[in-house]
């Protein structure tokens, strides 16, 4: 059966939904206002385990399920910078180690794959880590992808499957899917707010890949930082979390991120600083996405509010929303994420 679907928002979520719907034979149009979205700044960590936090068990379940779908999803798209070298959690001081250990113990209590590691074990894996580090953990199943490769690949795949992608405003459609990130609040009245994040992009001084291969999630003197090494020599260092709507890049953010990064991996100081960018994550009150039909607005489905997890949640969001649009019935996995949870 052919259905008329309009997807608002050509970020990874909107494009993937459009692609999946087009693959199922629906007539799909993806519209976008042309503004830069969160994916431009995103580091692309696929970290269901290291991101798992107290009280967010439903979200963790969805992250785990989506991460499982990533290898096949990436294989369908071609080169999206998918790397499965795993993630190291690294703590600098004993205070940092206590914090990292507390979270690791919680993650292990959920039976998530994470292993405590001594400092020497971490440095065997990544010799460039500072001799000062105290310990950490290995989350071997937490991978990465490059969002700046993912978005063009999704556009290409969606177009190849028959979807059209245009600049402009939403028009009439059988079903409208609002996947507009921070813009979704105005379009659909859902509680999505911009949460500013400043992110750096460095480049290894020598040609070729950077001198480390794992994603590093660090705790350095109370500061949180991540370092994501790409095969082409890029290293993404992030990120601040600020309840602000402006896009200024600040000296303090660069200082904090680089101090933490160089505390953990001293030779980062030799890398070239090639970009500082501020993006806005589409945050929700409970940090989980808003997925499902909008009550009182027949024919409107929302898929937004992915906050820090947009890239990892792209495959499962696309599958579940395409299912919902096609069958008209939500998958039980969507239950904790309905827009209705914010209505009370």
């Amino acid at each position: 059966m052919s259905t008329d679907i309009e997807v608002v928002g050509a970020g990874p979520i909107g494009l993937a939904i459009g692609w999946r719907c087009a693959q199922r034979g629906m007539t799909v149009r993806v519209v976008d206002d042309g503004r830069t979205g969160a994916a431009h700044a995103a580091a692309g960590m696929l970290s269901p385990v290291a991101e798992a936090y107290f009280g967010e068990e439903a979200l963790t379940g969805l992250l785990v399920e989506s991460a499982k779908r990533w290898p096949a999803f990436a294989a369908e798209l071609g080169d999206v910078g998918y790397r499965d070298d795993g993630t190291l959690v690294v703590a600098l001081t004993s205070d940092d180690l206590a914090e990292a250990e507390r979270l690791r113990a919680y993650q292990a209590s959920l039976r998530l794959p994470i292993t405590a590691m001594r400092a020497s074990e971490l440095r065997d894996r990544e010799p460039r880590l500072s001799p000062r580090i105290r310990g950490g953990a290995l989350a071997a199943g937490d991978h990465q992808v490059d969002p700046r490769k993912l978005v063009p690949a999704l556009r290409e795949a969606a177009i190849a499957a028959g979807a059209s992608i245009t600049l402009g405003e939403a028009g009439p459609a059988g079903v409208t899917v609002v996947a507009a990130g921070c813009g979704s609040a105005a379009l659909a009245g859902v509680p999505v707010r911009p949460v500013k994040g400043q992110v750096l992009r460095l480049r290894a001084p020598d040609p070729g890949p950077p001198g480390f291969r794992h994603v590093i999630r660090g705790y350095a003197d109370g500061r949180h930082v991540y370092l994501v090494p790409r095969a082409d020599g890029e290293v993404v260092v992030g990120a601040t979390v600020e309840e602000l709507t402006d896009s200024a890049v600040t000296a303090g953010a660069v200082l904090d991120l680089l101090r933490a990064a160089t505390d953990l991996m001293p030779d980062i100081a030799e890398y070239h600083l090639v970009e500082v960018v501020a993006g806005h994550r589409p945050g929700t009150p409970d940090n989980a996405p808003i997925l499902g039909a909008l009550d009182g607005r027949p024919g409107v489905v929302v898929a937004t509010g992915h906050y820090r997890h947009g890239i990892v949640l792209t495959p499962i969001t696309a599958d579940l929303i395409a299912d919902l649009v096609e069958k008209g019935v939500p998958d039980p996995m969507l239950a904790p994420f309905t827009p209705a949870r914010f209505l009370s």
Partner: protein
Amino acid sequence: MPLTIAGESFGSRLILGTGGASSLTALEEAVKASGTELVTVALRRVEAAATMGGGLLDLLDRCGVRLLPNTAGCYTATEAIKVAHLAREAFETPWVKLEVIGDERTLLPDGVELVRAAEELVADGFTVLPYTTDDPILARRLADVGCAAVMPAGAPIGSGLGVTNPHHIALIRQNVEVPVILDAGIGTASDAALAMELGCDGVLLATAVTRAADPARMAAAMRHAVEAGWLAAGAGRIPKRFHALASTPDEGRPDL
């Protein structure tokens, strides 16, 4: 008996900070469970625009709590005074929790800058609640320049070490007429109860609740602890003894 600061009464003696909350939902549940009526927010961390979709200010409004802007992150009197003025304009309140931090590692107050900033803000008509060290003389100086309360640290911010110098907190209580609010260092409920037993009029805390595995549960614990400590402080505790004292005396017992 309510807590009275600068002529305003609060039914709860617990003041909550928002820093460290993992999500707005977790924060809202904690604010409600704490029973607090006063919540402190760093101006730098929020935009004053109350239009923020589902943001922090809407949340506090929904909980019906009063907002106490703070100058967290300021290192000089000049900077703190500037931020206090911005806060007064943005939030339309002359109340300010004055923080002037001395260094990044301890986050302890810089007493010299603090007194300078407090003096000027009081002269400018602010109701000033300074975050100070556990120094009784400094606390008295702050009260002398006209602060509406003094808020000594139990221990460094976020350390969870509790009340590291109980004697000084008790001295501060004796040294000033204004309310004494223990601010910073609380790790768990017994720390908050101890602060109240030492004579504090209230407790301000953030991390102990916001970073707990179950923030709402810890917030409820703090609510009870502050109330328990306040009740105990006024109930006239028994003296400590070296040896036991039978709770039922021997004299006059019937011969059975």
